[in-house]
C-alpha cells in the first residue's frame, strides 16, 4: 500500500471550529483509503479531531505534537 499523503493542510493560527471544519471539507474530495495530514496550533483541535473521526468513521491514524504544533494524519474511510 502506498503511504503517499494526498493532501496537506496548514491550519496553524486558526481556532475552533475552523481546523476541523476545513479538514472535514478537504476530506470530502479524497478517495477511499487516501491520507490527509493537517497541522494546527489550537489545542482544542486534539479532542475535535478525535471526536470527528469517531463520528464520521474516518480513521485518525496518527496524532502528535511538536513545539506547539499538532499534526494529525487521517485516512478516508472505505466506500
Amino acid at each position, binding site marked *: 500500500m502506498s503511504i503517499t499523503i494526498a493532501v496537506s493542510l496548514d491550519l496553524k493560527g486558526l481556532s475552533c*471550529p475552523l481546523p476541523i471544519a476545513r479538514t472535514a471539507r478537504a476530506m470530502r474530495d479524497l478517495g477511499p483509503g487516501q491520507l490527509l495530514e493537517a497541522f494546527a496550533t489550537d489545542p482544542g483541535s486534539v479532542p475535535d479531531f478525535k*471526536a*470527528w473521526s469517531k*463520528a464520521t468513521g474516518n480513521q485518525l491514524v496518527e496524532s502528535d505534537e511538536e513545539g506547539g504544533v499538532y499534526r494529525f494524519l487521517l485516512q478516508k474511510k472505505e466506500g
Partner: protein
Amino acid sequence: MASEVVILGGGVGGTLCANLVARQAGEQAHVTVVDATGVHVYQPGFLYVAVGNQRPAALQHPEASLLRHDVTLITERACKVDPVDQKVSLESGRTLSYDQLLLATGSRTMMEEVPGAKGVHDFYTMAGAIRLHQALEEFEGGTIVLGVAGIPYKCPPAPVEFVFLLDDYLRGRGIRDRCEIKLLSPLNRAFTIEATSKLVQPILAERGIELTGFFNVESVDPVARTVTSLEGETVEYDLLVLVPPHRGQQLISDSGLGDDRGWVPTDKNTLKHVNHQHVWAIGDATNIPISKSGSVAHYEATVAAAEIVAEAKGEPAPTHVYDGKVMCFLETGHGQATTIRFDYDHAPVSPSPSRFWHWAKLLFNKTYWHTVPQGRLP
C-alpha cells in the same frame, strides 16, 4: 471629592453594577449610566416570544425605573472612549470624564456576515423573534432547520431550548406530524457541555428532532432553500432559523479597546481591561471564554462593583474575584427544564429535567424586574 464612575450599557450587568456601586460607595462615588435606548430589555424572553408564549411588551422596562435615584442616566449613544485621558465622547459631542469606567456594552448580531442569509429567521433580537413567530403561525408543514452561524453566541443552551419549545408549539397546533425539525450543531454533540449533551440527546431523539453534528453554517442559498456548512455539507429547509454571528460593539473597536471581533481583552478573575488602568468589562462584551449570558453578567457585576468601590474609596482591591460562575436554565419542552451550573474549577452539573426547574425559570423571568437589577439576588 466623589469618584466619577461611568458605566456604558444599561443591560443586566451595567444596571446591577450601577446600583451596587451607588449603594456601596455612598457619597464617595457618583455613578452615570450611558445607554443608547434607555430601554432595558430582558433578552432571555425572546425565545418565548418566538413560540408565542410571551408578550413582547412584558420584556421591556424603562431603564430609569430600574436604577437608584442617585444614579444618573444619560440616554445617548457613546461613540468613543479615550482610555489615556479617561474620557467618553457621546453622540451629541458632549464628553464625560471618568475615574473608573465599566464596559457593559454587550454584543451585537451580524446576520449580514453570512452570505445569502438576508431575511433568514432568528430569535436574537426582539424584531427577529416577532417576525419568526409570525412565520411559524403561517407555517403549515415542512422542514424547520436551526443552525449556528458563529461561535461565540449568546446563551449557549438557546438553540437546544428552541427546538424543544418548537416541538411543543407544533404539537400544540396539531401539525407536528407534517413537520421535520433539524438541529445543526457546530460540535459533535447537541451542546458545548458533554454532561448536558448526554442528558438532552436522548430527549431530542424521543421527540423526533434530528441532530446533525459538525455543522458550522457558512452560507445560505435562499432560492434553492439550502444551508451549507464550512465542513461542506448541505441541508434543505422550508423555514430556516439561524443563530447569527456575534461581535462586540462598534464603540469598542473604534476606541481600540477590543480584539479583531470587538471583544474586550479582560482578566478572567479581576475583570479589569488587560491593557488599561481604571477600566473594567463584564458580560457579553468581554473576551473571557465563558458563556455569554445574563447570569455571567450578573455574577461579574457584583465582582466589578466591589473592585470599583474599593478604588473609589482608595481601599485595597477586594480579595473576592470572579470564579467563572455560570447558572443557566435549559427548557427541555413538555413543561420541563433542567439547569446547568459550573465555574472555572467545577465541571457542569445538570439535574434530570423536571417541572420544578421549568416553573423556577418562569418565576425567575417574572420576578427579574424586581430582583436582579436592584441586587436583591446574590
